[in-house]
């Protein structure tokens, strides 16, 4: 994979096993009423790869990842995760698949009646069914340390700032050690410094936990920091893809419009 050095360069050059497609989407379509949100989506994501999907708001970027975890059922096309067609999975199989996928919501989606500790314990006790409290405590502390939030362990979500909520949400997602991470606009609503910190955190966590990621965003800095490959979405289709640097040189006007403010 061709990749040039970038300005901030927190990322190292990586090679991906091209043979192993973790996510394989072909001709995916999804409509809501009369609105065709996804018209013809084709995407293959390889193990260990960070794919950033860029697109304007309301273009259905999040719909794609919601289909991946089975929150939405596509109208047409195929969507395979680990070689399994998601739409054909039974409830039990879907639950097992979801245990391998982490989904970071735009808002962090922390359970607001629980402390940060309880939020992190929830997937361990309910999903992984871990009973040993020492093991639970160890994993909670380890993952909170990793996202730099150890001091907030007993705080309520309402006491956290936007960036801290995102970090806590990320910690809760990573605690079950997923193989795939799906990020839905992870830096939306954050100031530029915190956005950058979160982007670097995503990259560091990806290295540490060796996850495959799809990052939905319209934050170019986040894309530059995290992406191995960038896919541009417009009008329900992926119109162009490549490395961040290669897309900067694209002749396509829609692609150019994303990069015009990047010096």
């Amino acid at each position, binding site marked *: 994979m061709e990749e040039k050095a970038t300005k901030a360069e927190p990322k190292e050059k990586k090679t991906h096993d091209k043979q192993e497609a973790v996510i394989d989407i072909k001709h995916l379509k999804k409509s809501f009423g009369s609105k065709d949100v996804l018209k013809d989506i084709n995407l293959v994501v390889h193990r260990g790869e960070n794919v950033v999907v860029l697109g304007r708001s309301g273009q259905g970027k999040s719909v794609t990842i919601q289909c991946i975890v089975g*929150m939405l059922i596509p109208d047409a096309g195929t969507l395979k995760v680990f070689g399994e067609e998601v739409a054909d999975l039974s409830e039990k199989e879907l*639950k097992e698949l979801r245990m391998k996928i982490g989904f970071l919501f735009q*808002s962090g989606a922390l*359970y*607001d009646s629980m402390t940060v500790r309880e939020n992190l314990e929830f997937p361990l006790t309910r*999903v992984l069914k871990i009973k040993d409290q020492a093991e639970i405590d160890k994993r909670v502390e380890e993952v909170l340390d990793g996202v730099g939030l150890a001091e907030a362990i007993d705080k309520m979500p309402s006491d956290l700032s936007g960036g801290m909520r995102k970090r806590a*949400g990320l910690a809760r997602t990573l605690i079950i050690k997923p193989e795939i991470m799906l990020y839905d606009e992870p830096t939306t609503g954050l100031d530029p410094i915190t956005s950058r910190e979160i982007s670097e955190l995503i990259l560091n966590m990806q290295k540490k936990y060796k996850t495959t990621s799809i990052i939905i965003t319209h934050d170019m800095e986040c894309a530059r920091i995290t992406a191995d490959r960038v896919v541009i979405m417009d009008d329900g289709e992926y119109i162009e893809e490549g490395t961040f640097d290669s897309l900067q040189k694209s002749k396509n006007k829609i692609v150019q419009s994303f990069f015009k403010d990047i010096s």
Partner: protein
Amino acid sequence: MAEEITIPGWKKWLEDIGEQVSFFIRFFKNIFVGGFEWSEFVRQCYEIGYRSIMLVGITSFIMGVVLILQLRPTLVSFGAASMLPKTLSVSFVREIGPVIIAIICAGKIASSIGAELGSMKVTEQLDAMDVSGANPLQYLVVTRILATTIMVPILSVIGDVIGLFGGFLALNLRDHISISLYATKVIASLDYTDFLPAFIKTIFFGMAIGFVGCYKGFHSSKGTESVGLAANSAVVTASLWIFVIDAIAVQITSILFYK
């Protein structure tokens, strides 16, 4: 571009009924799935039961006082003032207590559950729970519906006692009756056919309150306005269900006990 599809109102209504039946079946199945959420269930019993005692107590007390004050002139005009304890106890235990307390609970509990779950839906907490592989029905719905099913009858019994005590105090404003005589008259005027059917119907009231609150919260649309709508709709629907269940229960009780 696909054509705009307009679904007729009656079809939406039927769809909603179908959704409710499906939601109830899923709730029922999840009761028996392993790993019952005891700590959340106990927390909900505390939130729903203990935190409603004051409201239920004040309402029941006032109802007991008001009923005696309203009944007294009529019964006195018939020379039946001695019937006041019996009239109050039978009407309160059979009908007024359970229904008024259930309506109060619908206003407090169903709206609170509807708003809480609606808010969790809006802030993607329900989706997060679902996507993580956890079971939101087991954690959020089963615990809340079972807690209301158990706590509303208990609140109703507490409300009955407080309402009858309110009646005793109101009676002593104009007449003089000792607490022991009043209690004797109340107990003598009640038998199991008064208490048991009323108690059983409060179990259904409680289940309806919890179910409607959870259903409306879970099925609210994504927007801050929908949280208010879910809470409002939960109160209205739960109140309606209480009257429907009451009408059915009274009919069944009449057939079984009051031939």
